[in-house]
């Protein structure tokens, strides 16, 4: 018998039916050939019904249903196949000062992908004083105090006012190496430039979206795009900005869809519990992992190195504080005591946060401590990841999408500000092998793939990676010939250190 007591073949049914009829009729009926023929036909139809019943039973349960029946199980829970989504991001246009690019202007990549501008944009003259200019070898690095909104491949007009003057350039193609820094190669004096330096360029930064959907529409920063139709006084070439074009996802595959339904059925979903939140987050295309932090009684402390007051706002400095907006803290140890409060805060940057104080007390002294529960009653913190993207760290746009999705279902007694959705900060984990056998390309590729898989599935937000776990990933790698590696790691040599809002990612792997 197969599943659900289904006979293995038509013949099984025929034989049983023939035996039953033979017993009942003392063998008389089977002496007539047409009776046997008729039994054959009836048993065949019975077998068909058995097969149909088997199929009904299999399709009735998620673990055994075929892919094409998944929606039958998912849709009652409002879980539908996630569609493919277009990519989006910003593109840097150059041209004459004042030239305009209209919304819906098409641009295309060398591979034929079409993107359209989402807003109007005007090319504007930028004249910026850089924070510094330095040269090491032939590489000149220009740093700014605010994001420059440029892109690799873009041509800046000039740098003027430098001493020594071999830092000055005109019509220079640049490489963007950070949101606030650009680089180019030009031989000359080593060290820093001084003077009244002006960096000048003409650009417009315009949001674009791909016309088609899919992960293939994501583009790295600096990718060259071209206007499909010429626009007066606008350069044909334009470039993807430093953040790249992201959010493009393929239509969800059946494995992922089945898993989401399974998660929904297997994890008791009550209103806004963890399972519900995870299910909602994964309705946003591309979100593959969700890590939820519930209220805890765990109290953490950070040291505040200084507090400076502006009007009734205290600006506290604590390097890499790891706090989020609206975290409630208890400040203690400050003198004057007016700063010692239980209050919510606003994060200014990674090292500073602000809270309100009463009156105008003098800047405080003392050993100042801020105590907080990582997640307080009433709050929930939700870390999201996109493991199928080049970078698993979601952009702020993607975080916003998830937050908006959850806000649609937010309990009425919960404040919007207590829903803390975040993308963790990547902490690249580098690897250096001092010995590897077999030291073949195939083995190195296999190890790289194993580590890449680890950092897209096993690592957790706020959790250190054990050195032993990382070594185990390598040890359990097989190359295409079935060999496991013999190796020595010179780095890392210990567990890494991952902060509250951080997650490890795969950094550089150096093989011997």
């Amino acid at each position: 018998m197969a599943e659900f007591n289904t006979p293995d073949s038509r013949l099984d049914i025929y034989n049983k039916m023939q035996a039953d009829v033979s017993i009942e009729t003392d063998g008389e009926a089977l002496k007539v050939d047409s009776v046997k023929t008729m039994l054959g036909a009836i048993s065949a139809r019975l077998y068909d019904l058995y097969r149909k019943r088997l199929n009904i039973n299999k399709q009735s349960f998620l673990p055994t249903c075929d892919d094409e029946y998944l929606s039958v199980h998912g849709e009652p829970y409002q879980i539908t196949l996630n569609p493919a989504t277009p990519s989006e991001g910003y593109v840097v246009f150059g041209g004459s000062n004042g030239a305009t690019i209209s919304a819906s202007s098409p641009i295309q990549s060398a591979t034929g992908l079409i993107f359209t501008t989402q807003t109007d944009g005007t090319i504007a003259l930028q004249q910026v004083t850089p924070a510094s200019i330095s040269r090491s070898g032939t590489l000149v690095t220009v740093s700014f105090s605010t994001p420059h909104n440029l892109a690799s491949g873009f041509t800046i007009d000039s740098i003027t006012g430098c001493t020594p003057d071999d830092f000055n350039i005109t019509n220079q193609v640049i490489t963007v190496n950070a949101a606030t820094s650009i680089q180019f190669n030009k031989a000359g004096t080593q060290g820093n430039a001084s003077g009244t330096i002006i960096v000048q360029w003409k650009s417009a930064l315009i949001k674009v979206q791909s016309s088609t959907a899919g992960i293939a529409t994501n583009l790295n920063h600096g990718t060259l795009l071209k206007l499909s139709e010429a626009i007066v006084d606008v350069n044909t070439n334009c470039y993807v900005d430093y953040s790249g074009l992201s959010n493009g996802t393929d239509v969800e595959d059946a494995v992922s869809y089945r898993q989401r339904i399974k998660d929904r059925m297997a994890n008791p979903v009550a209103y806004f519990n963890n399972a519900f939140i995870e299910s909602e987050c994964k309705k946003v295309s591309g979100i593959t992992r969700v890590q939820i932090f519930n209220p805890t009684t765990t109290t953490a402390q950070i040291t505040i190195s200084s507090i400076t007051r502006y009007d009734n706002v205290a600006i506290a400095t604590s390097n890499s504080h790891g706090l989020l907006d609206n975290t409630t803290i208890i400040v203690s140890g400050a003198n004057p005591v007016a700063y010692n409060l239980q209050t919510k805060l606003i994060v200014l940057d990674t090292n500073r946060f602000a809270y309100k104080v009463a009156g105008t007390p003098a800047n405080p002294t003392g050993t100042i401590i801020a105590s907080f529960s990582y997640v307080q009653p009433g709050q929930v913190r939700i870390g999201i990841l996109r493991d199928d993207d080049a970078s698993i760290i979601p952009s702020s746009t993607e975080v916003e999408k998830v937050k908006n999705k959850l806000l649609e279902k937010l309990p009425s007694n919960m404040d919007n500000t207590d829903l803390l959705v975040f993308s963790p900060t990547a902490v690249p984990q580098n690897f250096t092998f001092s010995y590897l056998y077999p030291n073949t390309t195939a083995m190195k590729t296999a190890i790289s793939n194993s580590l890449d898989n680890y950092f897209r599935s096993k690592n957790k937000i706020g959790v250190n990676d054990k050195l032993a776990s990382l070594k185990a990933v390598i040890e359990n790698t097989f190359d295409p010939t079935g060999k496991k590696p013999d190796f020595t790691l010179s780095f890392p040599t210990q567990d890494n250190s991952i902060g509250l809002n951080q997650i490890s990612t795969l950094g550089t792997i150096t093989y011997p």
Partner: protein
Amino acid sequence: MKDEFNIKTVQEHTIIAASFLPNDNLHFAKNYANSDLYKFLKGMAKSFKDLDDLFSKDWNNMSILTCDNEEFLSLWESSVGIPDNIFKQTNSLSFEQRKNQVLTKLTSLGVLTLEDMKALANLLGLTVTIKTGEEVAYPPYDVPFIPIGEGAKFILVISSKDFNDTGYPPYDVPFTPTGSESLLIDLFQSIKPANTLLIVT
């Protein structure tokens, strides 16, 4: 339950099969038990009954309440994700205990109110008292941070005289649950709103 889902005898299947034959002279003997035609139909009816019985049992097994088949129960368990980190055991449990686990998990779907949580506890044979942080007259001594004030309404304090601890009031926290108590608390942890702190005393 409609008649079509009742289990029928071989004789009933024989009579039903006979009823589809014409009432003419050729098939006159179809209702006589000693006739060759009736015997022939009866021989085939056994195979009809095999399949019909399975359909009827399928109907029962599609509900966890009436499920009595190992293969279907396994599918039920797999569908709701048992075993998991709450319902860990299957091998050592009786068929009825396994059914009750599935039922408990299904019941926990869509729990919304404190009364729903209490009903869930009842399924596991426990009677619990649930209060919010605001309702607790004296401080729950194991709340180290912001027990009073805006966060208090997001604290649920669970207690039960059925819990196997000895202290009262709850000076002996942390409470170490066992057996069905442990299962209930794990279940409550998984279904409580994500912004709520659960304290068991």
